[in-house]
């Protein structure tokens, strides 16, 4: 399963360097983050991209499902992911939190 994932190209917007180490799965609830890159094979990344989960977008984990999977808010929509997927999303914490509002 893993070898297959590695054989396929991976969606990365830019060289992420050491920044890519923080994953969406590690983020506590209500901490807004910015998506840096998607560490998934293309065909798994495409549904994410279509729903606006693109590098640069803001994501906020809002809830944990009974099975422990994250539910995030993006552009005013709620999206349920598997934690395996969340662990493939490299994110960056937004330090200037309450800016726009």
């Amino acid at each position: 399963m893993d070898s297959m994932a590695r054989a396929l190209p991976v969606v990365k917007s830019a060289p992420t360097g050491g920044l890519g180490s923080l994953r969406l799965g590690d983020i506590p609830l209500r901490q807004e983050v910015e998506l840096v890159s998607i560490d998934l094979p293309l065909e798994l990344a495409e549904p994410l991209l279509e729903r606006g989960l693109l590098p640069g977008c803001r994501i906020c984990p809002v809830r944990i499902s009974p099975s422990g999977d994250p539910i995030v808010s993006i552009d005013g929509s709620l999206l349920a992911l598997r934690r395996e997927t969340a662990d493939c999303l490299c994110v960056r914490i937004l330090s200037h939190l309450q800016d726009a509002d």
Partner: protein
Amino acid sequence: MDQFESVGITPGDRAGGTALEDPDRAPVVALVGPPNSGKTTLFNQLTGLRQKVANYPGVTVEKHVGRVRLLDGKEVDVVDLPGVHGFSARTLDEKVTRDVLEGRVAGVRPPDALILIVDATRLENQLMLVEPVLELDVPTLLVLNMSDELESRGGRIVDAALAEHLGVEIARTSARTGQGLDSVRAFLSRARPLDPSEPGSPRTLSNVPRGQSLPMLDAFAARRNMVREAVRVAGFVPPGPSRFSERLDSLFLHRWGGPLVFLAVIILVFESIFTWAVPLMDGVEFLVSSSGNWVAGAMPDTWLRSLLVDGVWAGVGSVVVFLPQILILFLFLGILEDSGYMARAAVIADRMMYRAGLQGRAFLPLLSGYACAVPAILAARTIEDDRDRLATIFVTPFMTCSARLPVYALLIAAFIPDEQLLGPFMSKRAAVLLGLYALGIIAAVGTAFLLKRTLLKAQPSSFLMELPPYRLPSPKTLALRLLDRSKVFLRRAGRIIFAVAIVLWVLMQFPRTELGAPDIEESALGMIGHAIEPAIAPLGFDWRIGIGLVTSLAAREVIVGTLGTIYGVETADEESVALQEVLRRDLSPGAAIGLLVFFAFALQCMSTVAVMRRETGGWKWPAAQFGYMLMLGYLGAFVAVRIF
């Protein structure tokens, strides 16, 4: 089997083909939009009862077309397309939507105008479809639906600015309450048939370059930036969070509360199918039998009466009885889906399903499978990953569909004593029925597990589920859906059972003897039964059961009527005491259990095979499924007859 037809479409009438177009024809307007944007609600508000369901030629993606008559007498055909997030054609729904919009479906006229409907409360998320749709260069109306909700939650959009920026007309609606429909109708009244001979821009949806990560990412990023800009220009103020939805979610997705509610919902659905449906089913049965008696009384005693009353009425009636159950199930599924709960249920079920090799979205098809595998298999179209979808539709027929019930009911009543098993809590009969349901689930889970580790070896699949805000379902949409389902079900029942009844009746009339019709054992039907007897003798079945097995290949419940006919029992239904008695004479208790197990596993349903062929694009999967389930049924019966 109405679902498998292309209704009202002339083959070969290729889109954009001949120049000899009728300039007075009704223009075709297609409804496009993401899932949960209120497309179908708007469609129902516009067309009401003047709609029909068909399929796109070649695929079983349902097509709803309705004719709208406007105030000035003008008529417009509105097409409801499946809800999509994009046009990459990853799912069947996306492929169909794309092909229709590009005018590449033979026999389906390319739309003369488009209505792009979005949920205004989530504008940023929903506008991702705008860019590709506008590139089609067809007159387009952007409908900002649910704008009442947007306003009540303090959100704002400056329509004029957005309209100018995008270069489209905009209408604000609340499809559920019917607000703003006049502006949609005004747009429809301005739609004109496009002249196909006129050279226009080629109709292609801008495709995202696939297969390479950077170009694809750039294309999406460009689309995203365009949406950002549009949203900024429109002065979009997102609505405040929906407290109502948040409060419901903190229960429905609660660590313990969530699974409890989930279980309660499933129990409620089952309870309603098996308890509340009973009086309704009795009512239908009464109607069928009294109308049959009336026909019998009104006709002279000829072969025609025997064919009509003993064959057709009894056969068709035995299936029509299930209509209330199927409608109740679809009513529940409709409420669960339209209210937004189904998405939460899928999230809760996902982990469980994932272990079996399926995913959360498979929950809906599998639950629907308890009513009928045909709509259930169609419901699996929302599963994006092809392997997950195949695995789901492969195991769906193991779920105990309502067509198995009359067979179970007859055999259980005939062979299982009416005794208590666990004190007052459960009777032996209920336990056997429960066991048969469990058998179906075990077979489904086991098969999915095996499939995903062999033939459909899992690539890492993903599960993404959008959780729409909770909303009150629209009674009109629910009612129209039920009407749709009844029509499809009745037509299907009518055709298959009708055909089987006639064939059976004819086979029993030949070869003729001097006394007229032969003894059943000497008839063509009897010969068929004897021919297959050697194959089923190890299971303890004789030639009579053999005939039942053959006829039940069309549909499982047919065996009840067939056995009734063979044994010459006048009123054959699952409660028929006379039929139970003769069955006890010819079947050992072990063979009866074997027959039950056989029915739990085997795929005796023409409609399921047909829908599988359409959904998988060939005979390979339905053949494998049929063979596998038959083998499992045979082995199961073989083992059961030796244990019991």
